[in-house]
């Protein structure tokens, strides 16, 4: 008599679990009570125990897969027992599971859905939320094509866009293009799929990118969606993630249960992007001195505070990849390349041109490029690829006499740094009052991606660079 091993509700609130590790291999002799696997629930890692004797005939879930409670994970049976029907029916059960998780996913997304229209009309043309720099090579699951298909970044031909919002990220998040209503089309625009398959996938919250199509030319058709069990989908997803990761431009981080819970709860509490703010005051005296000295060396060495901050942020992002990330709904994508967007005020709005690979640029490269971009931005001569594809943003209102402000995150980015003006302030240094140049910065963080301490550590690093500005010249 075969025993089905299913994802059990190991805690009262558990809706799905992630299989962390298999402790038994296919073919292993199993006794009831044996620990088959470790499962991460929303609260802790728990043991999944065998409920019957026999041989572990088939493992249906892979390590790392998240499966809804009730999903068939494995079959224990006699060595010669025919388990085809169980494995087959497990498929059905698992698809039901997928449907459930899909609904959960849909619910998670629905929070942002009502805002999507706003996001699209207001901001989208100005700012594609996903980096396009690595557009040449990421294959079908890559994000840039999604953007194109999603419609949100349909690049305007002709003059640069007219973002009406006060600050690019003002719009609520549209983390996945046009989102919940057509997630398939949005996320997988270039994946060929049938209209019916797209509807099914949309309804079940299945990412088309995670599925191998079996229709003509690899087109995704109905049966592919139906065959996309919870396990299979997760496997497909991690395989895709691995492939992309090896390309070196970014790394996808599967959401742990705690990460999911954080995302879910905070979104409920605080709008689509659960934002918190970290404010710090940096000493910019040395930076100011350096600026002065550089200016004396000649125009070609001039750098603004803005340039210095961008360089410092870029270097700090290199040390804190968890901040240089996008929230993609079902995962966090950490980028290995650093593309810093800077907000530029233009006549009737603003635009955020991007300094690609800012960490690899010298301060003077940044200075020259920033000037060029800002100039052309004001003339509305930027190409779409020049203001899309950032991984982090910086906004500076110091030149308007603002001490401190909060900027709004530009989704799917996880953070933005708002720079206030540099001003002289009396500061106690070693027990003495001194007049120093001070600069207040406020970082807005998407709590789903960045926790308080993570953000704080990042700011520490930024501080180190700003307060030791020669390190920016090395």
């Amino acid at each position, binding site marked *: 008599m075969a025993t089905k091993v299913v994802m059990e509700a190991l805690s009262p609130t558990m809706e799905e679990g992630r299989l962390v590790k298999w402790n038994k291999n296919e073919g292993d002799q199993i006794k009831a009570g044996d620990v088959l696997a470790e499962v991460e629930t929303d609260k802790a890692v728990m043991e999944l125990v065998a409920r019957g004797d026999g041989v572990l005939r088939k493992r249906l879930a892979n390590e790392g897969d998240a499966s809804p409670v009730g999903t068939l994970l494995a079959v224990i049976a006699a060595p010669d027992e025919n388990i085809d029907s169980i494995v087959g029916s497990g498929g059905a059960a698992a698809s039901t599971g997928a449907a459930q998780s899909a609904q959960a996913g849909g619910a998670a997304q629905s929070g942002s859905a009502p805002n999507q229209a706003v996001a699209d009309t207001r901001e989208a043309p100005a700012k594609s939320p996903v980096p396009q720099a690595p557009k040449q090579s990421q294959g079908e699951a890559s994000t840039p094509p999604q953007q194109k298909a999603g419609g949100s970044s349909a690049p305007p031909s002709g003059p640069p866009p007219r973002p009406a919002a006060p600050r690019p990220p003002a719009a609520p998040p549209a983390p996945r293009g046009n989102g919940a209503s057509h997630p398939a089309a949005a996320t997988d625009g270039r994946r060929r799929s*049938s*209209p*019916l*398959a797209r*509807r*099914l996938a949309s*309804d079940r919250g299945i990412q088309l990118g995670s599925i191998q199509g079996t*229709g*003509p*030319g*690899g087109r995704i*058709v*109905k049966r592919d969606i139906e065959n996309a069990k919870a396990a299979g989908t997760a496997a497909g997803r991690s395989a895709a993630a691995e492939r992309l990761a090896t390309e070196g431009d970014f790394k996808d981080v599967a959401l742990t249960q705690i990460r999911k819970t954080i995302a879910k709860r905070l979104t409920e509490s605080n709008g689509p992007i659960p934002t918190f703010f970290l404010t710090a005051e940096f000493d910019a005296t040395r930076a100011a001195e350096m600026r002065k000295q550089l200016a004396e060396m000649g125009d070609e060495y001039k750098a603004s505070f803005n340039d210095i901050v961008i360089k410092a942020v870029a270097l700090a992002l290199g040390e804190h990849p968890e901040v240089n990330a996008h929230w993609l709904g079902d995962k966090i994508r950490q980028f290995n390349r650093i593309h810093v967007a800077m907000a530029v005020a233009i006549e009737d709005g603003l635009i955020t041109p991007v300094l690609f690979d800012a960490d690899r640029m010298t301060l003077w490269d940044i200075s020259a490029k920033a000037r060029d971009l800002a100039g052309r931005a004001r003339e509305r001569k930027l190409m779409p690829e020049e203001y899309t594809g950032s991984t982090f943003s910086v906004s500076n209102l110091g030149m308007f006499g603002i001490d401190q402000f909060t900027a709004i995150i530009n989704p799917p980015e996880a953070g933005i740094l708002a720079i206030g003006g540099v001003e002289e302030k009396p500061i106690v240094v070693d027990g003495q009052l001194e007049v120093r140049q001070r600069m207040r910065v406020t970082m807005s963080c998407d709590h789903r991606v960045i926790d308080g301490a993570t953000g704080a550590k990042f700011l520490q690093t930024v501080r180190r660079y700003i307060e030791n500005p020669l390190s920016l010249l090395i």
Partner: protein
Amino acid sequence: MASYDVIFIGGGPAGYVGAIRSAQLGLSVAVVEREGLGGTCVLWGCIPAKALLESASLATRISHGADFGVTAGDLKLDYGVAMKRSRAVSTQNSKGVEFLFKKNKITWIKGSGKITGKNAVTVKVDGKEEKHDAKKAIVISTGSRVKGLPQIGLELNKSTVISSDEALTLEKAPKTMAIVGAGAVGCEFADVFSAFGTQVTLIEALPGILPLEDADCSAELTRSFKKRKIDVLAAAKIGDVKVGKSSVSMSVEVGGKKQNLEVEKVLVAAGRAPNIDDIGIKEMGVQLTDRGFIKINERMETSVKGIYAIGDVAGPPMLAHKGEREGIVFAEFLTGQKHVHPVNYGNVPNATYCHPEVASIGMTEAQVKEKKIDYKVGKFPFSANGRARTSGETEGFVKIIRDTKYGEILGAHIIGAHATEIIHELAVARENEFTVEEVDLAIHAHPTLSEAIAEATLDSLGKVIHI
């Protein structure tokens, strides 16, 4: 003795199309065919029957000519002439296949083929035997034949108890005829002979004519046939068959009521049997299905390596277009093509060319119900379609069965003029998994019969415009 990559036994639609595709893919190909290229379809089925139906249609339309302001004198009907035209059309089509063979350098081996070993096909030509070598594959595409109904006394005698083969070569239409079996063939011949003045009794054992079609279509066709004085007897049981030299008598019991019937000819249109005898498959150990067809897998492989089967002999639906597709899929798998699209047996259109025509794809409403799928039906009558009114062909309707939640087109059923032509929009839609909404979104020209399809999809969404 000659050597080929592939030898097809049988040159009907499955065999000849498979042969052409194989040749296109670079294989050397021979087809063993004892009669003419094109098989039953071209010689004794689809093509000549449709040619006769065209005569019947013309007769019917001319008889209504006065309503259209066109009168062409006295209407004279000559089945013999219609028959000869139909034969000529057949021959022409068969010659067309011969031309295609030449074009694709396919060898036609005239004779009867038999598998006589691994890679070996022996062909009997005029009593002489020659052996041929098939290096890569032997494909059985021998088709099927009418089997008659000896169990109820209706053994084919080619004079008073005939099959469609004889019906296609009659010199004149009989005065009375009983057609046993109201599938596509039975309904089409009922239409033809009725148009040529025969008093036709159409007898079906199952509860409705065209029993494989949706019950609504079956009912509509019954109504139409009865209007044309075709006697339709469904759920009927035949007994007391007496076959005479110039007539046949029988009793037909419907709903407990027995009636006696005496007719000049009985056309047996029930049941076809696969041609599996004397082709060597028993000796080779080729497995059959429990219904007596050759068992194949998705690559058309039989249980014996190197032997393949396609077309009617490989199982239902016994339709030329299914066989053709199997031939293509066979060739593509054999030559290792990328992305071979296996035959989608759930999306083979059915077509019956009587008047009104009946065409369908996908499931009937009864099948959907049986599967307990949540569905909605959309229906649009041709009587509300402008184009149908202009041609005075307002019988019938389009019926779309869609999945409630996703709008998947589960089944589409059309009865009406040109139904067999306009069904393909839905075949394309289903093959590409378009939902009812995509079908509606495609703008349909006005005025066309196809508008009725768009309207039926709209009706299934509760948004029909023209009713």
